[in-house]
């Protein structure tokens, strides 16, 4: 497994603490959802970064109250065919305004990289080394996107209007919506 962030393979500075073990001070950790909620008063006071591993079967609205104390949310793809975490990611980014690291874990494969990026993920625990190496190429595969997502890539309707504006030469005022 390789962690990819900002398009490159990087070291994972987060420690997974998934059982009852004590949470080390001073180290960034990822803890399970149940523990986050149960021990939140202790965790909220931590100085080091805290992340949560949120199951794909739980509503993101339940996580919302804790988000501003979290540096990282890890979402899960039990199999790459189970697409629930895409909706969770978009809701976290677009509805709840989460700005921290949004990490894809589980069955994370090359042919889903661009979908993941568009849904708002910015870190990827990639199953195959070859896939991790191919990350940059994979997300450059497409230059046209039909629909707006939270990733800021311009959807085709807007691209067409901007293209038409450029073709007309002079800068024209943006049409008020």
């Amino acid at each position, binding site marked *: 497994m390789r962690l990819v962030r900002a398009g490159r393979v990087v070291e994972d500075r987060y420690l997974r603490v998934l059982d009852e073990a004590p949470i080390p001070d001073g180290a960034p950790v990822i803890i399970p959802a149940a523990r986050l909620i149960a021990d939140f008063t202790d965790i909220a006071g931590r100085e080091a970064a805290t992340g949560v591993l949120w199951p794909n079967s739980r509503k993101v609205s339940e996580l919302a109250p804790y988000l501003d104390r979290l540096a990282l949310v890890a979402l899960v793809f039990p199999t790459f065919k189970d697409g629930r975490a895409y*909706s969770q990611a978009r809701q976290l980014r677009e509805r709840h305004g989460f700005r921290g690291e949004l990490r894809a874990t589980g069955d994370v494969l090359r042919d889903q990289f661009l979908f993941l990026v568009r849904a708002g993920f910015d870190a990827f625990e990639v199953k195959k080394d070859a896939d991790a190496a191919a990350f940059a190429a994979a997300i450059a*595969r497409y230059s046209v996107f039909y629909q707006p997502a939270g990733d800021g890539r311009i959807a085709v309707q807007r691209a067409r209007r901007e293209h038409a504006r450029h073709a007309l030469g002079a800068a024209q005022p943006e049409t008020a919506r």
Partner: protein
Amino acid sequence: MYLYDDFDRTLVAERVAEFRDQVARRLSGELTEEEFKPLRLMNGVYLQLHAYMLRIAIPYGTLSADQLRMLAHVARRYDRNYGHFTTRQNIQFNWIKLAELPDAMADLARAGLHGMQTSGNCVRNITTDQWAGVAPDEIEDPRIWAELLRQLTTLHPEFSFLPRKFKIAVTAAAHDRAAVRVHDIGLRLHRNGAGEAGFEVIVGGGLGRTPFVGKTIKPFLPKRDLLSYVEAILRVYNQFGRRDNIYKARIKILVHDLGAEAFAKEVEAEWQPIKDGALALDPAVIADVAARFRYPDYAALDDNPPELAKARAGDRRFAHWLDNSVANHKLAGYAIVTLSLKPEGAPPGDATAEQMDAIADLADRYSFGEIRVGHEQNLVLPHVAQRDLPALWRALDKIGVATPNIGLVTDIISCPGLDYCSLANTRSIPVAQELTRRFRDLDLARDLGRLHINISGCINACGHHHVGHIGLLGVEKNGEEYFQVTIGGRADENAELGALLGPAVPYGEVADVVEDVVAAYLELRARPDEIFLETVKRVGVEPFKERVYAAR
């Protein structure tokens, strides 16, 4: 005709390049079959009994003559010289090699054709009325909305791994020719009391193992909100649709389990935060998409020109065809012509490469270069001048697509069945062929009137048997092929599922049984112009059951 621009073409080209890479990685073993299968399905590539099958999308059933020529080319170059038109306005090629698929897709892409999302757990081809844009009873062209939805749902990052497939249909006419009530989302464009046009949103319809007629969750949705509302529905389904059991994974199960009201509430909760966001449709965006639909430069013509009346009087065969296969166009002097792909003895919905080329030429000559594909597996030339009908008919007759059986007993809708499909229990095509022989007498067919026979080789119901006037469902009993017979189904605005007639009948007897059902109808009908469906409605299933099973 929707005109692709550079953006559309680039997307398709990028998709082809990606698939070429995926095929290479599969052939080298870098991708396992388990990893590759969903990827190939999302490009419309199935594995069937004998070979791979490629399903190509024909968005809202509209093809240009050049596109039809490209399909003929693919049939010749990569397949066995024919293609099969499906009940979802797609075309299927049954013999394509995996290794050649990237080249076939590159050829198709040159004509703006592709297999994107014709399979897989994503949003499939969005279908509509094959008479869209020319039907007298439509309030506006539904294809504009189908195109907006196509763009919303193509390579959607959030909805490419849904619990199961997702099918959307749109209608804008009083008479629903798109079967919207048996789709995952059905959209009926209509006018409200104030004369504004908007959508009735129907969710959770579908055929297959657990058939349902859809429920209306929003009686009137303004056009502006179409994309955001559909996105909200998909988001609810993506999160809460079942993933533990593929037979319970469609949205119809979720809607049924939650109840329509609770489901609608979930959709509202997802929708409210996004309804005024980037998906809100402003008139400029709608106008841009609408502008890409080119309509013919129609001439100002009169209805019923003298050459038409003369030809009708002079040739009985032409007159029969005129009465059967030609429908009224919204414009005076024009007509909508249906081409029957159901000649006697032939597999329903198939066309040879030769026929496709010939039809493309006829479309250029007589229909402003445009063809439509209907979910009844026939083709349509939507813009024919009435004065051209005699010449067109002679040409269609020569290539075998002028059988005047549209909507009649031999206009059978059938899935490919066990001759092709790895999911099937029984064969279906030979049954359809035998029925076209039993009912070959066109006078009889005309006397019987409108009668839809639908055949599915298995419970997946690709032949839409649940909504056939007579439905045949292939089942297996002790290793033998049997059929369950239903009667009284319909797919239109009064959609209803057929009722079981009686015990399943063996393959060798099913054509006899259909003949007996038809004989019972002739005996029971109140008047010659009471169609089969009306008779079933009036007398119920029992009288049919008695007569058909009396000697069995």
